């Protein structure tokens, strides 16, 4: 497989950020394109610190709330470490990666809360899972592989709501990791 359509660079992320921020409500935490990326089948990775060590987890769906929070739905048992770290008042990092573009951004925050998943989350979990499968099929995965990776028990869901305090481009390439300043 050669160059994926729609592949972007960190420098393009920075330019897009600057151009969209210029006319945007300063209270908004993310630009519209990043909000769209987060809510449309992205791979969602979570990082936290528990008992002095890093711990990693993953979400299955993200919904942007009107108050600027990102609501991430995740398996409760598969993310026990991350949930415990948040409950203990620790900071959280979340990285959203789109396929097939590999475009990615990371948010970091100390403002997050753990809750239950609700019936309202379910249609969105299903919709975003399908987009996730579509994206992975475009980079060479079968739908079975994509579905297996994301598989979750609907009776074992929790939510994490986080307010992005700092945002970074995470798209691979020169400039990756650069902060997108508010």
């Amino acid at each position, binding site marked *: *497989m*050669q*160059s*994926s359509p729609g*592949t972007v660079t960190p420098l393009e992320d920075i330019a897009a950020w600057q151009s969209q921020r210029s006319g945007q409500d300063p209270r908004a935490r993310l630009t519209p394109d990043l909000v769209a990326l987060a809510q449309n089948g992205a*791979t969602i*990775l*979570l*990082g*936290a*610190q528990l008992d002095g*060590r*890093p*711990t*990693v*987890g*993953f979400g299955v769906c993200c919904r942007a709330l009107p108050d600027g929070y990102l609501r991430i739905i995740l*398996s409760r*048992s*598969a993310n026990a*470490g991350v949930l415990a770290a948040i409950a203990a008042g*620790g*900071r*959280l*990092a*979340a*990285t959203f*990666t789109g396929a097939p573009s*590999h475009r*990615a951004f*990371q948010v*970091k925050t100390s403002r997050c809360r753990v809750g239950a998943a609700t019936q309202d989350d379910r249609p969105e979990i299903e919709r975003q899972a399908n987009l996730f499968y579509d994206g992975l099929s475009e*980079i*060479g995965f079968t739908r079975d*592989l994509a579905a*297996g*990776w994301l*598989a*979750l*028990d609907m009776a*074992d869901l929790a939510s994490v709501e986080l307010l992005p305090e700092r945002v*970074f481009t*995470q798209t*691979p*390439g020169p400039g*990756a*990791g650069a902060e997108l300043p508010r």
Partner: protein
Amino acid sequence: MTPLAVDGLRRSMEGVFASMLATCDAEGTPNVSMISQVHYVDSQHVALSYQFFNKTRANVMQTRMASVQITDPSTFLHHRLDLDYVDTRTSGPIFETMKAKLAGIASHHGMDGVFRLLGADIFRVVRIEAVPGPTLPPSEPRRLLASTRLACAELAAAQDLETLLDGSLRWLDVHYGIRTAMILMLDEDREHLFTVATRGYARSGVGSEVALGEGVIGVAARESTPIRIGHVTREYRYGSAITETARQAGLVSGDAQTIRFPGLSAPRSQMALPIRGTDGLLGVLFVEDEEAMRFDHEDEDALAIFADHLAARIALFRREEADEMEEAAPDPLPEQTGQTLRFHPLDQSVFLDNDYIIKGVAGAILWRLVREHRATGRTEFTTRELRLDAGLRLPAHAENLDARLILLRKRLEERRTCLSIERSGRGRFRLHLACGLTLVEADSDTGGSP
């Protein structure tokens, strides 16, 4: 908490799925990213690719801790590993293997040149946690151990080196279903490998050369370690670079003396395994396939055992052959008409009329045999006399002589020449001339018998 056994998780480290990596800085701020490679090092260690000096890298240097999550592509079981940083390798087998894999992964995702391996960060695994969640039952185990037992029994039954080398490739097909493979032996200069047996290709390519460090084969030879990649990239492919290498190796004039490398035109999976004797590298066993990720850790284990047995058999034949010292009586003189055999001393290349046959040690041997035949009428020769012939410029321990003779025999056969050689006993071989020959040594311009 599961007992520490990274070995059981190797399938999750094949690179089918990207893995997740979390680190923290000294203040406890986390950072999380995808990582393309979690490389199995041994039962206690893994290596992560260090590609950029980014936040992850800074955090690792600061706190020396990481957490990764890996996924088994057949059961979908996730595992979380707590890691403590040990050191960074910027050369050697682990680095080279990861570098080759990374190049393939980058190419596979349309990111050639974006990913470059700066180092292989080695971590000790301090905790392994199976992540709860829906999984599939494990698939039926493959019968690689049984296949290896059968294949090694075939190796043990081979009666001579040529049967062993050609047979090895046939047995890889029969017992492992590997249809395209080759064996290359290390040249006396220890800077090149020459192809001595191939199977499954459109042309045999016997006699083609690969420089140490070039592609998967050359890197495996230089580092004496298996190199296995599931997404082959141009960087590790054998194409025009081979021609250039051959030209730089001291050939007189361009392409005529270059035998093209026979590899697949669009390989996706490749694996090269060193064939190691007690005194160092003997050669490389190379397999490839058009299917991506065709070879996994288990295949590598199986073929590594196979290559070790192959090495032991090669060493045995060499010892046996060295013990044999016989010489045959001369035969009547042949006629001196027909085709012209031309020898170029500079690179020891031999042409029959205008057809390139072989160069280097094999070329010198051929020239020596036909001259001896012309002078004395002999057709029976021993490898011992070749070893003792100072004019052949063989190094002190010309351990590859048998492989050279096999290469020469195959080239004479492939080019459909009127010359042939065949093994006539242990340490002995016979020269056949089906036509008269005029011998010409190019530089000295002495036509006819020297």
